[in-house]
């Protein structure tokens, strides 16, 4: 049976005194991580909370990982949230999950109390400080209680709920279980060639599933993860110096983070000489930037990863084995072991090589669906129509094809979902939020892939000037979903069919940008 804590229980003994997770505020060894997690688990159990969601609201730190593990020790599942999320979105998450307990640190506890008072949340939960529930030794009764919880665990029990953008304005809580996480980590670790000497440089926030790719392999192999200070991603020369200084040899970053480093001409000043594995994914990576990286780190293995949160992270991989010219598509490659990819064309048939179809995924990696949302779950987690028995598959909404080289290639989305700075965003969610602002009648969000900008056009009356719309959006949207440009417009252009003409809007935007450029 697969259980994610099995990893830590081995490395807490074999690598007891080695630093496991290192952040700005300090580090935890494997033994410390194990002790704090178990104590946290016992404290949660003491409160009679079992098989329930527990919100973890902390700054990115080794302690936050211990809190995640503690929640799982208690037989519960964690819901990570972050101070960067606007209060409105956190409220939606609380309403969906109804947590009994919220684990905070001393920076987030005051925020939570403030929001709860201001917005009069209709939620009853206990908020505790991680430091208060994780210190000290276990009592004998705690050891027995944790052992009993473990004995009753099965591998389809939930581990976490992470929230991702939803097209109707309500985020979706993707729920993963032990076997989906363990299956993913086993396959991913093989692809990334992780061992105890691996030093990860983590970029992704801990409130996304993307962080699993460092957290779990670290616990499995007794490796080490550095949480790179977020501010360094603004200052790429310092970022590369940080990698070198800490001998980081393995990074899995969103393509935009790598693209930023290359695009700002960082390698003219500094070379990343410790990297051995450079994995990237979650969005299209320009071949121009990729090639700058390959020149700067010629000994590193480059790996393209692809996969949706609903299949617990990544599902396909491609180890770069040839050169790519500007404009070439980088394949998403082949599925991980124990993962199967199916393509369906518009008629439900398997398209011939080179022809597009919707990418569908089947295997143990599939999540448990969306939390408390059977309707949206059953729309995308469906019976595989090609199987004459019960066989679930996840419809990604991505269009792809299989090339003559046997690799899969990503083509486009079927809907208005975009990838921006590595985040998955439903443009329609931005529109829903905008149209809730008083005075706004209609709104359309578009994405300019060339400049990687989100642009919002809206029709509104005099009570909704641009400044008011921008201010209102800021309180309701996560920072990464904020439009970079907002334009009031008398009427939104329509297609002959009566839909908003997004192509026309994008052209209009590009025209206005050209007009303001310095000649």
């Amino acid at each position, binding site marked *: 049976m697969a259980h994610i804590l099995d990893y830590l229980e081995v490395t807490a003994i074999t690598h007891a005194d080695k630093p496991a997770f290192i952040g700005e505020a300090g580090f935890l060894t494997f033994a410390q991580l194990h002790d704090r997690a178990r104590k946290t688990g016992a404290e949660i159990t003491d409160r009679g909370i079992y098989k329930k969601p527990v919100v973890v609201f902390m700054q990115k730190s080794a302690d936050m990982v211990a809190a995640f593990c503690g929640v799982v020790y208690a037989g519960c599942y964690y819901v990570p949230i972050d101070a960067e999320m606007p209060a409105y979105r956190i409220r939606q998450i609380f309403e969906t999950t109804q947590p009994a307990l919220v684990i905070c640190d001393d920076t987030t506890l005051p925020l939570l109390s403030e929001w709860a008072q201001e917005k009069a949340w209709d939620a009853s939960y206990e908020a505790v400080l991680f430091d208060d529930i994780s210190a000290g030794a276990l009592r004998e009764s705690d050891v027995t209680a944790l052992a009993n919880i473990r004995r009753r665990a099965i591998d389809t029990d939930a581990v976490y709920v992470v929230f991702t953008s939803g097209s109707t304005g309500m985020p979706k809580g993707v729920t993963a279980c032990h076997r989906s996480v363990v299956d993913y980590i086993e396959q991913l670790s093989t692809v990334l060639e992780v061992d105890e000497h691996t030093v990860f440089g983590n970029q992704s926030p801990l409130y996304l599933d993307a962080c699993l790719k460092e957290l779990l392999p670290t616990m499995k192999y007794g490796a080490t993860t550095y949480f790179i200070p977020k501010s360094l991603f*603004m200052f*790429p020369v310092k970022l590369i110096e940080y990698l070198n200084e800490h001998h980081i040899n393995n990074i899995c970053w969103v393509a935009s983070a790598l693209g930023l480093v290359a695009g*700002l001409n*960082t390698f003219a*000043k500094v070379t990343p000489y410790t990297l051995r594995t450079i994995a990237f994914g979650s969005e299209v990576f320009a071949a121009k930037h990729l090639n700058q990286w390959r020149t700067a780190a010629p000994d590193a293995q480059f790996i393209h990863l692809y996969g949706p949160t609903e299949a617990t992270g990544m599902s396909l991989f491609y180890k770069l084995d040839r050169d790519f010219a500007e404009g070439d598509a980088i394949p998403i490659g082949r599925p991980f072991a124990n993962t199967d990819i199916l393509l369906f064309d518009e008629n439900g048939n398997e398209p011939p090589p080179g022809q597009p179809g919707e990418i569908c995924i089947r295997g143990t990696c599939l999540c448990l669906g969306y939390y408390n949302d059977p309707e949206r779950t059953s729309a995308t987690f469906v019976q595989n129509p090609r199987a004459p028995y019960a066989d679930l598959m996840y419809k990604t909404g991505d269009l792809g094809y299989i090339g003559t080289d046997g690799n899969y290639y990503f083509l486009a989305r079927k809907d208005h979902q975009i990838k921006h*700075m590595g985040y998955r965003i439903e443009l329609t969610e931005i529109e829903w939020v905008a149209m809730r602002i008083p005075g706004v009648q209609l709104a359309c969000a578009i994405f300019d892939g060339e400049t990687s900008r989100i642009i919002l056009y809206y029709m509104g009356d005099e009570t909704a000037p641009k400044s008011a719309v*921008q201010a209102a959006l800021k309180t309701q949207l996560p920072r990464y979903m904020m439009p*970079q440009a907002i334009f009031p417009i008398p009427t939104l252009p329509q297609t002959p069919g009566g839909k908003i003409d997004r192509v026309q809007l994008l052209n209009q935007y590009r025209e206005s940008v050209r007009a*303001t450029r310095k000649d």
Partner: protein
Amino acid sequence: MLLEILQELHPDVDYATHTTLIDDRVIDSYDIIFLVGEIADKLDVEIPADELTPENFNSYAALNALVQRLDENA
């Protein structure tokens, strides 16, 4: 022009007096990317990687001085 770009980004900030834009996390990594792009597009000034430092982005005055300096040396 630079001030307009900054005001477009955060209309609620008083750029005349704010000198800790980075330290207070008023400007984050998305903003830096946006600013570098806008400054290249609208002012025709390319900011090289080693000039991307907290000091250069902490205030309007510092960023303006950087842009002026790069423009003159171009």
